């Protein structure tokens, strides 16, 4: 009960944010929520199932292009394009998992990294269709849903909030379900889970696929809400970012990914006035987190004070 109240309260606060934030900050918050959906998906794989992937940019880009290309080439509207994006992310994750889950640990990291790199290079190779590094703008006609123009501030914010809310509540329900417990069992002790009769491969494959659905939804939402699709979203940088968000907010906590995305955004925004060295902040945050707070903010809060935090 407490848990659901906490999550619904956060969503209510976010809903009112559009009234007291300036349009500029509201757009940023919409962007953060979309990135948080991506990070929540990453958290399901890394935080709960223990799959440390360095290739999630591939899944983000799969969703983005699965939504953006039909919109661009066939003139699909936002609804079908979004669904295609989710499916694209899930399919890419399932294919990645079928191959990469034969390995574990460091090999899994390198294999996912290599597949993501191959995906990025493939986008560059087919630049006449994908737009390559420059990407392409999604046509305005494909950015309307039920008559609302998603490129304007208020509908865009509400659409981002709706996707974020669905993702958050679904992940909360998932991690509290029996399957969620099985995912955690994979993280804690795979050998023992196998001995108890679980098929560890299918559990991990399912977890990675769900993670891919989230990444695909985030990619498609980004394409539709912000109107841009480009190969830069397939670079290694976009595999590192969700990891950073999750590590900062707390791996294996439902609210951690959003908190991490929000804090990192604020941190970089605040630092912009002082220095242009964005990458330095990202790098220093990674090193500091892994050294001093490997459980992240909410992970530490849960250990010290609030035991019931999911």
């Amino acid at each position, binding site marked *: 009960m407490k848990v659901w109240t906490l999550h619904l309260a956060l969503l209510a606060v976010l809903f009112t944010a559009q009234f007291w934030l300036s349009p500029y900050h509201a757009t940023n918050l919409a962007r953060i929520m979309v990135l948080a959906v991506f990070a929540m998906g990453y958290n399901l794989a890394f935080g709960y199932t223990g799959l*440390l992937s*360095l290739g999630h940019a591939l899944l983000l880009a799969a969703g983005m292009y699965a939504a953006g290309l039909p919109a661009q080439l066939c003139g699909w509207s936002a609804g079908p394009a979004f669904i295609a994006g989710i499916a694209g992310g899930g399919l890419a994750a399932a294919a990645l998992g079928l*191959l*990469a889950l*034969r*390995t574990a*640990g*460091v*090999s899994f*990291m*390198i*294999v996912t990294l*290599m*597949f993501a*790199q*191959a995906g990025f*290079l*493939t986008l*560059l*190779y087919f630049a006449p269709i994908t737009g390559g590094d420059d990407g392409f703008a999604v046509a305005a006609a494909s950015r309307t849903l039920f008559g609302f123009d998603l490129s304007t501030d208020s509908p865009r914010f509400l659409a981002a909030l709706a996707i974020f809310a669905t993702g958050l509540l679904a992940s909360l329900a998932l991690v509290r379900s029996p399957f969620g417990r099985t995912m955690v069992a994979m993280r804690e002790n795979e050998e023992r889970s196998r001995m108890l009769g679980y098929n560890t491969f299918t559990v991990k494959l399912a977890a990675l696929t769900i993670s891919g659905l989230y990444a695909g939804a985030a990619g498609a939402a980004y394409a539709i809400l912000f109107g841009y699709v480009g190969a830069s979203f397939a670079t290694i940088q976009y595999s*590192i970012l969700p*990891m950073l968000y999750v*590590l900062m907010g707390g791996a294996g906590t439902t609210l951690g990914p959003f908190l991490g995305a929000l804090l990192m955004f604020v941190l970089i925004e605040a630092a912009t006035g002082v220095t242009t*060295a*964005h*990458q*330095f902040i*990202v*790098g*220093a*945050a*990674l*090193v500091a987190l*892994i*050294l001093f707070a*490997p459980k992240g903010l909410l992970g530490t809060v849960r250990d010290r004070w609030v035991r019931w935090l999911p």
Partner: protein
Amino acid sequence: MAFGPFLLLALMEGLVTAAVLALAAAGLSLVFGVMRVVNVAHGEFYMLGALLAWAVTTMIPGPPALAFLAAVIIAPLLVAALAAAADGLVLKRLDYDPEATIVATIGLLYILQQAALSLYGPNANPVTAPFEWRIQLPWFGYSGYKLFVVLAAGLVLLALWLLMTRTRAGLVMRATQVDRMTAQAFGINVDRVYMGTFALGAGLAALAGVLVVPIAQAHYLMGHDPLLLSFIVVIIGGLGSLRGTLIAALVIGLSDGVISMFFTPTLAKILATLLVAMVLIFRPQGLFGAKA
């Protein structure tokens, strides 16, 4: 130009790539072999080597050969010192946990890259080759410096092999590689071995960067491609196997030269990355490595 000479040129270019790659990859392989650490910041050590070579050669007056000689000595030493510091401050505190060190070296990559951008700037700068000397073949002239790079890389790798197999330091490193605990029980200072190994690996990458800078210009993003290629070489050659690394560097370097000349470089890279992923999945000990 007929096909034959064209192929010869492609192979010679490929040999230069292979030589530089073998140096950088040997460093990566050494660090992985002894410490079980996948160093994602390895490409940045290469980049720092090249940037420092530029800094040294512009600061030291006198003939290019002398300035370059100074760069060959100073740049790898500075980078090795930096790596030793990173080992002591970060990696050691993580107790060399494989996954945590990857995250930490990703952070290190960002920090070094940003430092290079802020201090050195976004420009690419050339370094004068230590000597201007061309070999005149019947079909085309070829830079003598590029052949010198191949020769120098070969000598350094030979020295590395002698170090690992014929000296006490190499023996201690191999002992630590085989069993860290037992090595410690026999009075080997494992912390110092790790620090030395990490510094040596970084120094090799930096040396590769110094050697390459008269051919390619010094730029703060130049570490990306060598990192990816070194990974490819080390994995195909078998993680931690020096001989496999050398063979794989030759194969990848030569085929990269040939494929890039006759097809597009992007296609060559796509095929290479997919090959690596498949090797790791289906043959984790590498194509040339012995059973791990």
